[in-house]
C-alpha cells in the first residue's frame, strides 16, 4: 500500500511538472493572485467562474488549473491582512493580529517576508504529511462524527476568546454576539425564520464578506482617518520604513519547532471536513501564544503571531483535499467547487479515485504545492513594493479603501443591502476598536456559528436516540480535555504570573 502510494506520488509529480502541463497550475496561480486584489472577488468566485470554461477540457488540465486556483488565493489574503488589517480570507484573520501591528511599526517587510516563507514551507510540510499519511488518514477522518466536530468548533471558539487581547469577558461577549448574529435567517433543522424582522434580505442570514469588510476595513479606515497619522506605518516616505525580508525569513528558521508544529496542526485540522482553515489558523496562533516561554508581544507585533497561522493556513490546503477526494465531503467553499469540477470531468470522489486514479490525485496535490511556492516566491519578490503601500498618504488610502470595501460588499451577492450591512458593521467595528472590544472573536463566531448549531442538533439527536456512547469515542474525551484545558489556561497562566511576580 505504502509502495503503491509512493509510486503514485512520483508519477503524479512527473505529470504535474512536465511540459506543457506545468503551465496550467502556473496560469491558475497568477490568475488567483491577480484577482485576490479585486474587492469581493475571492479565489472561490474565480473557481466558480472558471468551471464552465473548463467543461470541454480533458480532466488532467482542468485538475491542474484548479489546484493552482486553490493555492494562489491563500497567501494574497494574508497580504491585505498585514498591510491594511483587512483579512482577504477567514483564516487570514489570525495573521492580522500581529501582522498589522508590525506594519504599523513600519515593519511590513519583515511580516510579509515571514508570511511568504512560512506559507511556502507550510504547504511543503502539508504535502509531505499528506503523501505519508494518505493510506492511514481515511480511517482517522471517519473517527470524526458530529459530537467530535461540535467539540472541535467549540474548542476553536474558546481558543480564540482566550488568546485575544482585551480581556476574557469582552472576548466572551464578542463571541456571544458573533454567534447570535450567525443565527439570523433560517433555522437549520426546522427551517423557521429567526431575527429577520420580516426582511426578505435577511432570510439567508448575514453575509460574512460585508461583515468582515465593515468590521475591519471600514472601521480601520475611520480609525486611521481620525488618528492624525500620515500613513498606515506613520511615516511619510517609504525610505523610512524599517524591517527587512531577510529578518522575516530568518524568523521561520529561528522558530522552526513552532513552524513545524503549526504546519502539523494545519494539516490535521484541515483534513477534518466542515472545519476549514479558520480554526486551524487560530489554533496555531493560540499554540504559538501559549507555548511562548518569554510571554512574547502577541497582539502587539510578535513575528511568531504571523509565522504560526501562515504555516497552518497553507499546510491545511493539502489536508483539506483528503475528505474531498476520499469521501466527497468538501470542507470549504473552495473544495466544494473543486469537487464540482472533479465530478463534471467524470472523476467521482471515493475509493475508485483513491486507487485507480491515484496518480491524478497526486498531480492535483503537486499542482497545489507548486501554486503555493509560486505565490510565496512572487510574494517575496513583491514584498518591497507591497510594503511601500503602508507609506502611502492617508488622503489616498482612506478614500480608496472605503470605495473598494463598498464595491467588495456589493460584488459578492450583488445586493445594495450588503453595502448597508458593511457600513453598520464598520461603525460597530470602529467603536469596538476605540473602546477595546476585540473584533476577531465576533467574526470567527459569525463564521463558525452555523457549523456549531448543525453539529449540536445532530449530537442532541444522537443523545436522544441513545446512540452517543462516550466510552466508544476516545477522541471525544480527548477534545473535551483540550477544551477544558484551554478554558482553564488563563487562570493557570495568571496564577503563574502572580507567583513569578511575588
Amino acid at each position, binding site marked *: 500500500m505504502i509502495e503503491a502510494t509512493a509510486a503514485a506520488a512520483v508519477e503524479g509529480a512527473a505529470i504535474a511538472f512536465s511540459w506543457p502541463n506545468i503551465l496550467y497550475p502556473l496560469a491558475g496561480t497568477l490568475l488567483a493572485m491577480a484577482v485576490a486584489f*479585486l474587492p469581493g*472577488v475571492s479565489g472561490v*468566485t474565480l473557481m466558480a*467562474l472558471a468551471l464552465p470554461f473548463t467543461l470541454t477540457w480533458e480532466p488532467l488540465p482542468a485538475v491542474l488549473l484548479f489546484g493552482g486556483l486553490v493555492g494562489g488565493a491563500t497567501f494574497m489574503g494574508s497580504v491585505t491582512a498585514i498591510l491594511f488589517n483587512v483579512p482577504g480570507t477567514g483564516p487570514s484573520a489570525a495573521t492580522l493580529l500581529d501582522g498589522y501591528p508590525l506594519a504599523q511599526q513600519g515593519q511590513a517587510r519583515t511580516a510579509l517576508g515571514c508570511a511568504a516563507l512560512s506559507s511556502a514551507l507550510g504547504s511543503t510540510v502539508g504535502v509531505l504529511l499528506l503523501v505519508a499519511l494518505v493510506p492511514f488518514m481515511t480511517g482517522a477522518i471517519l473517527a470524526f462524527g458530529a459530537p467530535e466536530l461540535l467539540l472541535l468548533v467549540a474548542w476553536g471558539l474558546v481558543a480564540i476568546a482566550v488568546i485575544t487581547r482585551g480581556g476574557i*469577558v*469582552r472576548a*466572551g*461577549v464578542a463571541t*456571544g*454576539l458573533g*454567534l*447570535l448574529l450567525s*443565527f439570523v435567517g433560517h*433555522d437549520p*433543522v*426546522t427551517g*423557521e425564520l*429567526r*431575527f429577520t424582522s420580516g426582511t426578505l434580505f435577511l432570510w439567508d442570514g448575514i453575509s460574512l464578506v460585508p461583515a468582515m469588510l465593515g468590521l475591519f476595513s*471600514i472601521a480601520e479606515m*475611520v480609525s486611521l*482617518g*481620525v488618528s492624525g497619522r500620515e500613513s498606515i506605518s506613520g511615516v511619510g516616505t517609504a525610505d523610512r520604513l524599517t524591517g527587512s525580508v531577510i529578518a522575516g525569513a530568518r524568523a521561520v528558521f529561528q522558530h522552526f519547532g513552532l513552524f513545524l508544529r503549526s504546519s502539523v496542526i494545519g494539516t490535521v485540522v484541515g483534513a477534518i471536513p466542515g472545519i476549514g482553515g479558520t480554526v486551524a489558523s487560530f489554533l496555531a496562533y493560540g499554540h504559538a501564544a501559549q507555548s511562548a516561554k518569554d510571554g512574547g508581544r502577541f497582539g502587539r507585533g510578535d513575528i511568531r503571531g504571523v509565522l504560526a497561522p501562515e504555516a497552518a493556513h497553507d499546510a491545511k490546503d493539502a489536508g483539506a483535499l483528503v475528505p474531498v477526494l476520499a469521501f466527497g465531503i468538501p470542507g470549504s467553499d473552495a473544495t466544494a467547487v473543486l469537487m464540482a469540477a472533479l465530478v463534471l470531468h467524470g472523476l467521482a470522489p471515493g475509493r475508485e479515485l483513491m486507487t485507480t486514479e491515484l496518480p491524478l490525485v497526486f498531480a492535483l496535490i503537486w499542482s497545489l504545492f507548486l501554486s503555493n511556492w509560486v505565490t510565496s516566491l512572487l510574494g517575496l519578490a513583491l514584498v518591497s513594493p507591497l510594503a511601500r503601500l503602508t507609506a502611502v*498618504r*492617508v*488622503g*489616498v488610502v*482612506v*478614500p*480608496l479603501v*472605503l*470605495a*473598494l470595501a*463598498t*464595491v467588495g460588499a*456589493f*460584488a459578492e451577492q*450583488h445586493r*445594495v443591502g450588503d*453595502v*448597508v450591512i458593511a*457600513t453598520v458593521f*464598520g*461603525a460597530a467595528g*470602529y*467603536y*469596538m476598536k*476605540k*473602546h477595546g*472590544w476585540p473584533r476577531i472573536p465576533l467574526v470567527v463566531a459569525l463564521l463558525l456559528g452555523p457549523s*456549531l*448549531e448543525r453539529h*449540536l*442538533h445532530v449530537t442532541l439527536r444522537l443523545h436522544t436516540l441513545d446512540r452517543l456512547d462516550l466510552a466508544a469515542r476516545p477522541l471525544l474525551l480527548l477534545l473535551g480535555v483540550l477544551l477544558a484545558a484551554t478554558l482553564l489556561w488563563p487562570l493557570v497562566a495568571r496564577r503563574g504570573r502572580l507567583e513569578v511576580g511575588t
Partner: protein
Amino acid sequence: VRSRGEATAVAGVMLMVTLAVIVASFPLGPVARRLPLAVAIPTLLLLAFELGREVRLARERHGAERRGAEAPPAQCPSAACGGGATAPRIPNVQCGGGASAPRIPRRHSSERVLFGWIGVLLALVVIAGMAAGVPLFLLAYMRVHFRESWRASLLLSGAIALLLAAGLQYLLGVPLHPGVIGGWLEAAR
C-alpha cells in the same frame, strides 16, 4: 468623561441587541430558540458585568474631574514649556513641550465628518449607481476633504471607474447596481 460615557453607550447598545434577541426568541419553536437562548443569556450576564464596570469607571472619572476642577490650576512640569505655564484642564491632553496653545482633541468631530462621508458614499451608490457613484465619491472625498491634487484625485477615480467597468462588469460579469438614475434611464430607453 465623554469617552467613558461613549464606552458605556457601546456596552449598552450590545446589551440592547442581546436583550432584543432574547425577546425575539420567545415566539420561536423550542428547537429554533434553543441555541440562541443558550448563547444570549450568558452573553447578557457578561455584558451586565462589563456595563457595571463601565458605569463605575465613569463615576470615578467624573468624581476625579470634579475634584480637579476645585483644585488650583495645574502647573506644566515640562521645562521646555517654561516650567510654570498654566496647563489647561483638558483631560488626557499633554502640553506639547513648548507649544503655547493646548492641543484640543478634535477626534469626535472628525469621526462625525468621516461617517458623514461614508453616508455620502452610500447615498451616491443608491442614487447614481455603483459605476458612477463610487468614482464620484472618490473624486469628491480626495479633493474636498483631504485636499489632494486634482491630478491624483482624477487619476484614482478614473482607475476605479475602469476597474468597475472593465474588471468587474465586463471581464467577471458582475452586474453593478444601476441606482435610481440608472433605473430611470433604463426605463426611458
